């Protein structure tokens, strides 16, 4: 390296100050002006995370938020050169440091993850879509699934109600999160384990409805009858309307 050790050291001193706010004299610097850099770095990180996690930011106390941001900046070496991906590093950090327990917010990790998923789905690179036609029938054609989706299990229904309410409704919830192809909008659906199973099956294999009904019947110990068919068809139609099922495979 062509850089002298002392030059590199001085650069490191400034960077360290920006992250920690802990002052030490830096050679040739106007000490009173250094705070501008600390302020700028802090603002970028804080604003990015505030915008990424609006529900969390508005729910927890201001001093708790500030403590998390300050600790994150000081203790965590941010690795991503794209600042809009920083919220994922923050989520991992908060989980690792267990702020959930120290602040007594049992939903904190879930809430951050849920908010992150919205960003991830909204921004993730476009995935290749299979060729499909919107005309077809669930009974006779192979169903094509929107590949841009995630399913997440939650203990608090933070996707269904305000956090305060969700706290009183601890249980098991599954949320389907997907990106509508045309608009790029991220949508959420509260689904059952049976629905999640259906989506998993559709995402992995080309299956016809008849096989799907058999699979569901065996997996969930429920009779393969008209009621089941009707229920699944209702769900599939809903998925189609919402944009999770764009259409049907084109038969060659």
């Amino acid at each position, binding site marked *: 390296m062509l850089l002298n050790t002392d*030059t590199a050291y001085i650069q*490191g001193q400034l960077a360290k100050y920006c992250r920690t706010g802990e002052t030490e004299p830096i*050679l040739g610097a106007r000490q009173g002006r*250094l705070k501008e850099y600390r302020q700028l770095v802090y603002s970028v990180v804080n604003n990015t995370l505030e915008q990424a996690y609006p529900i969390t930011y508005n729910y927890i106390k201001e001093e708790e938020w500030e403590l998390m941001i300050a600790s994150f900046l000081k203790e965590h070496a*941010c*690795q991503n050169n794209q600042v809009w991906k920083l919220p994922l590093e923050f989520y991992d950090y908060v989980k690792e440091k267990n702020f959930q327990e120290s602040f007594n917010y049992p939903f904190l990790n879930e809430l951050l993850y849920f908010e992150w998923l919205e960003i991830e789905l909204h921004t993730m690179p476009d995935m290749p879509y299979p060729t499909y036609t919107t005309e077809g029938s669930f009974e006779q054609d192979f169903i094509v699934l929107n590949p841009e989706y995630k399913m997440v299990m939650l203990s608090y229904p933070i996707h269904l109600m305000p956090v305060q309410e969700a706290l009183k409704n601890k249980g098991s919830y599954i949320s389907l999160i997907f990106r509508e192809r045309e608009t790029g909008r991220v949508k959420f659906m509260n689904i059952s384990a049976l629905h999640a199973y259906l989506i998993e099956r559709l995402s992995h294999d080309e299956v016809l409805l008849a096989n799907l009904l058999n699979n569901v019947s065996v997996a969930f110990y429920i009779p393969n009858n008209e009621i089941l068919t009707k229920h699944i068809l209702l769900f599939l139609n809903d998925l189609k309307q919402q944009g999770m099922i764009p259409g049907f495979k084109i038969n060659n």
Partner: protein
Amino acid sequence: MVLYPFNTKLFTIMKTNVGIGFRRDFAEELLQSSVLKPAFIELAPENWIDMGGYWGKMLRKAAEQFPVTCHGLSLSIGSPEELDWDFIKKIKIFLNEYNVQVYSEHLSYTKCNNAHLYDLLPIPFREDAVHHVAERIRQVQDFLECKIAIENVSYYTPVAAEMEEHAFVSAILEEADCNLLLDVNNVYVNSFNHNYNAKAYIEKLPLERVAYIHMAGHEKVSDDLIIDTHGEPIIDPVYELFEWTLDKINPVPVLLERDFNFPEMKELQGELTTLQSICNKKWNKAYVVKY
């Protein structure tokens, strides 16, 4: 190595013309607007690489509608750290994909002690830093197979300086054989904050290397400090410095930077029009190559 620019024909259209930084806050308005009409747009590649969905579509639309330049944020050319070659590979793909006409970066560092800081820290004005930064610029240029433009940044305190700012910037440009993105507002901000003469500073730079100009607004936060916010309209003394500068350089693209506190599109277009009229006055009437 491809000498600047990538696409001569497109660049000829851009030079002497005024573009605007493409920001999400007004992306939709810009793409549908009959009011805001920049000659080109500038993107920070970091904000768009890997981006799909709605914003991916907007990016493709924008690139179809306007010529594109790129102004990077995270190359960290002045960092003591190793260059991030995975990132630079992504930059190269992005530049090719969007037919980018100018790629510029800041003469600063944003990563240190293995951590990104997401802001532009001042490099010590020192001889060893000149060699270090110039070598890195050369490496990046070799890999990208084109010249890059390096921007004079605004700074609020020098750090461990052993030479003057203009000498530092000039030495790097010469040693790296790269272009200069002359940020006129930054010169104004620095001249105020560090009490030097802005015109004298500009005259000492290798102006034949100017390939691109940035103009922006700033905020005076105290009697002796201006912060380069890009959140206000350009002030008259900066327009005046810009006009004075144009007499000394060859025609290049000019960009208006506005990053927040966005006004009505009409107001932004007003700034573009003012800049364009200055360019027309200084360049189009007497299209003389001075170097």
